[in-house]
């Protein structure tokens, strides 16, 4: 079978399930008794196993199979979720991740899952109390009530299920004579039963079934909220099944109770209808599934397709503008009215397309709990990670980029921020440290904060280190207040190993974090109090593709200035411009601001551009602390613009950051303020 076409789907789904595994195992660690979490884990592992087996990735299938065995024991309560087991499961998940990635990159996997499998097997044996008496019962087709011996835990599970209005059934399944793929059929049966309920036991055991160590019949105990005949039909819908008998499972203590039905339901596929009436076992029709806790339905779409869609919508808007022009010049009122309608539709359309590109930051956040757990264990610290606002949406392009900087900040907080439990206790703090990862909207921005209640950053130490490294002079250091000093950690060159180990430690690649955030059009800042903790605040634009910009005119050309770097716009007279050291400056609220004449910088031919004698328009811009005034001929207005690349041929023009297409179809260039004012 050619499975290549399913490869993308396999990878996507595997990753999703691995993510689920990660977060669920974390939950399990905190709440080992939680059966629904266990079931969730089991389901994910099971799905991965099924998919990888179908795709022919046997290593993955084998490993998940062993995992499943352990999970099964946990679920049946025959094994306790010890630290050892949780750790092993985590290792399995990691190995699976690597295996899946090696499939993705098509590289030969050098990952050895053998030791893990051995470990899993040992764990399963070591503490297992699973009866291995299965083999003797394989040939029996019991037509009387329940013949399966149940362990105490299984009985407990069944009782619990009954309390929730579900029933336990014993299903006796006979395969047709001459069935070739017995293991596959039994696997399908298990799968089908898992769909409508929960298989808690099988005779012979699942492994034996998979090794085809059975004649033609096997038995399964399943807990389900469905009717008995529904179960029967489900099983019979699988081909090569000869017979399926569904009996209510009777617990030993109940043998003389009243729950026993009149007659076992037995039927072969050919005579289904006749027997439908007899299927009157008392079962509540309660849906079995709390399992589907996933939100909404979704479709995976290639981001390129969305870009194309966005471009097309842009085109539509441009053509609409042209129609508008035609309507106005020819005074066609009907046309103008229709276009007004169209205008509303296109505006909505544009908004929707933009929204489609947004994804919740949870996609990035959900890998952090695991990371925090691992790191804090390595460092012998106790840390509670609190995540808030994971539903906050950001543009896909930003989401893809924001992960690394956040990992950096979190690692810093864990490593250098949060103290060891005993140190914390000495200071009268809760021995368990707390890190908060918070996302929220703020106007056109998204704020992401990484907050810890650790030891904070000592401004004096930072100052001293910065002076030692020659980044600032002693005089500068003395003039700095604490906040400014702490920001020194973002300076390139501040982050060296010596700083990390000796002092408060902040500074591992903080400049890298800052650069990354700024390349995304965002900002990062830090607030800290010694012994109370630090707060890193990242401000990001909602999207990289669309920004607010001020359109300005120079001679006949239109340029866009990103609003994010604009302070204000002012009018001045030519006489307000002074010269200091051969450079033109103006005085604004007591501050000296250098002047940039855009017409000169953009080499606009003199002939086309006449010097104005009256009022000049100046756009005051800033990059970091640096300010400048840009002289333009005219201000057109503020507008949302879609950023487009100029392409390979024109890449490398310093003062141009990109281009955008205006409402009339014309291309306008976006100015790169950073290089403009240098």
């Amino acid at each position, binding site marked *: 079978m050619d499975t290549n076409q399913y490869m993308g789907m396999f990878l996507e789904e595997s990753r999703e399930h691995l993510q689920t595994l990660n977060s669920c195992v974390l939950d399990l660690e905190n709440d080992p008794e939680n059966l629904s979490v266990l079931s969730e884990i089991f389901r994910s592992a099971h799905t991965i196993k099924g998919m990888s087996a179908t795709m022919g990735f046997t290593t993955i299938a084998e490993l998940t199979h062993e995992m499943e065995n352990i999970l099964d024991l946990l679920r049946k309560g025959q094994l306790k979720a010890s630290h050892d087991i949780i750790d092993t499961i985590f290792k399995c998940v990691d190995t699976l991740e690597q295996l899946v990635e090696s499939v993705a990159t098509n590289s030969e996997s050098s990952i050895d899952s053998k030791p893990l499998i051995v470990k899993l097997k040992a764990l399963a044996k070591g503490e297992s109390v699973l009866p291995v008496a299965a083999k003797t019962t394989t040939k029996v087709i019991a037509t009387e009530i329940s013949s399966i011996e149940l362990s105490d835990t299984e009985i407990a599970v069944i009782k619990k299920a009954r309390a929730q209005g579900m029933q336990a059934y014993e299903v006796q399944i006979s395969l047709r004579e001459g069935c070739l793929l017995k293991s596959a059929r039994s696997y399908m049966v298990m799968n089908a039963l898992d769909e409508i309920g929960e298989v808690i036991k099988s005779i012979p055991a699942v492994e034996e079934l998979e090794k085809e160590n059975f004649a033609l019949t096997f038995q399964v105990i399943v807990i389900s909220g469905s009717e008995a005949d529904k179960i029967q039909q489900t099983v019979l819908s699988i081909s090569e099944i000869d017979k399926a008998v569904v009996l209510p499972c009777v617990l030993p203590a109940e043998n003389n109770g009243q729950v026993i039905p009149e007659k076992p339901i037995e039927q072969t596929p050919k005579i289904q209808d006749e027997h439908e009436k007899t299927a009157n076992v008392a079962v509540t029709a309660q849906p079995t599934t709390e399992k589907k806790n996933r939100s909404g339905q979704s479709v995976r779409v290639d981001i390129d397709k969305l870009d194309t869609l966005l471009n097309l919508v842009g085109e539509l808007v441009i053509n609409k503008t042209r129609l508008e022009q035609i309507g106005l010049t020819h005074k066609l009122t009907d046309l103008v009215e229709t276009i007004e309608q169209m205008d509303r539709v296109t505006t909505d359309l544009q908004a929707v397309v933009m929204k489609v590109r947004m994804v919740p930051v949870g996609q990035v956040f959900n890998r952090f709990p695991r990371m925090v757990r691992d790191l804090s264990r390595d460092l012998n610290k106790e840390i509670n990670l609190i995540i808030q606002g994971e539903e906050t949406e950001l543009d896909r392009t930003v989401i893809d980029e924001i992960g690394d900087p956040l990992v950096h900040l979190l690692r810093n907080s864990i490593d250098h921020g949060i103290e060891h439990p005993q140190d914390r206790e000495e200071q009268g703090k809760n021995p368990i440290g707390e890190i908060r990862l918070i996302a929220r909207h703020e106007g056109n921005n998204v704020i992401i904060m990484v907050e810890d209640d650790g030891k904070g950053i000592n401004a004096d130490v930072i100052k001293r280190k910065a002076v030692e490294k020659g980044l600032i002079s002693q005089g500068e250091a003395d003039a700095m207040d604490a906040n400014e000093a702490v920001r020194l950690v973002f300076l390139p060159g501040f982050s060296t190993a010596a700083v990390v180990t000796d002092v408060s430690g902040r500074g591992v690649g903080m400049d890298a974090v800052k650069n990354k955030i700024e390349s995304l059009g965002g900002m990062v800042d830090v607030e800290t109090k010694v012994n109370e903790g630090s707060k890193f605040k990242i401000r990001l634009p909602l999207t990289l593709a669309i920004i607010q910009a001020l359109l300005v005119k120079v001679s006949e*050309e239109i340029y866009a200035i990103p609003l994010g770097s604009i302070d204000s716009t002012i009018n001045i007279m030519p006489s307000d411009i002074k010269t200091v050291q051969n450079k033109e400056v103006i005085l604004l609220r007591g501050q000296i601001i250098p002047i940039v004449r855009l017409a000169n910088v*953009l080499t606009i031919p003199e002939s086309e551009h006449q010097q104005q004698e009256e009022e000049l328009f100046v756009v005051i811009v800033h990059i970091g602390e640096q300010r400048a005034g840009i002289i333009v001929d005219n201000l057109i207005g503020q507008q949302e613009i879609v950023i487009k690349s*100029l392409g390979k*041929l024109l890449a*490398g023009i310093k003062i141009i950051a990109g*281009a955008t297409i205006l409402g009339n179809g*014309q*291309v306008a260039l976006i100015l790169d303020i950073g290089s403009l004012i240098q």
Partner: protein
Amino acid sequence: MSEQNYSSNEVQLVVFKLGKEEYSVSILQVQEIKRITDITRVPHTPEYIKGVINLRGSVLPVIDLKKRLNLPQQVSTEDTRIIIVKVDELSVGMIVDAVSEVMTINQENIDSPDVVAGSVAASYLSGVGKLENRLLILLNLEEIIGVGQDAKVV
């Protein structure tokens, strides 16, 4: 030109005019032909880069082909066109005076460009097509667009 391998012995060419001379490029490199539209000047680029245009939502650089080939300038007319070509995954527009026709020419009738050592630098040419009473100059687009070469911004 590698495209020649596709057809047995013949190549299809898009023929266009620059001034009075006839030039051509392989049809396989041509994406589309467009009437002249608004071109936005891009500062700090070589003179022959006319600017950028909006092609259905993408921003595309446009080359003034005559400036690139050092041919005498002319004002644009009704016939002026932009030929959008794709070279090495890079789409670029070229301004030409007029697009005349698409024609098929036999490989045997294409000579090496040395024969016409003339106004245009030899490296920009890939051959000369001889027809009964016409000479078609085949352009070497890789060189003209100069991907990653001197066409890059100064």
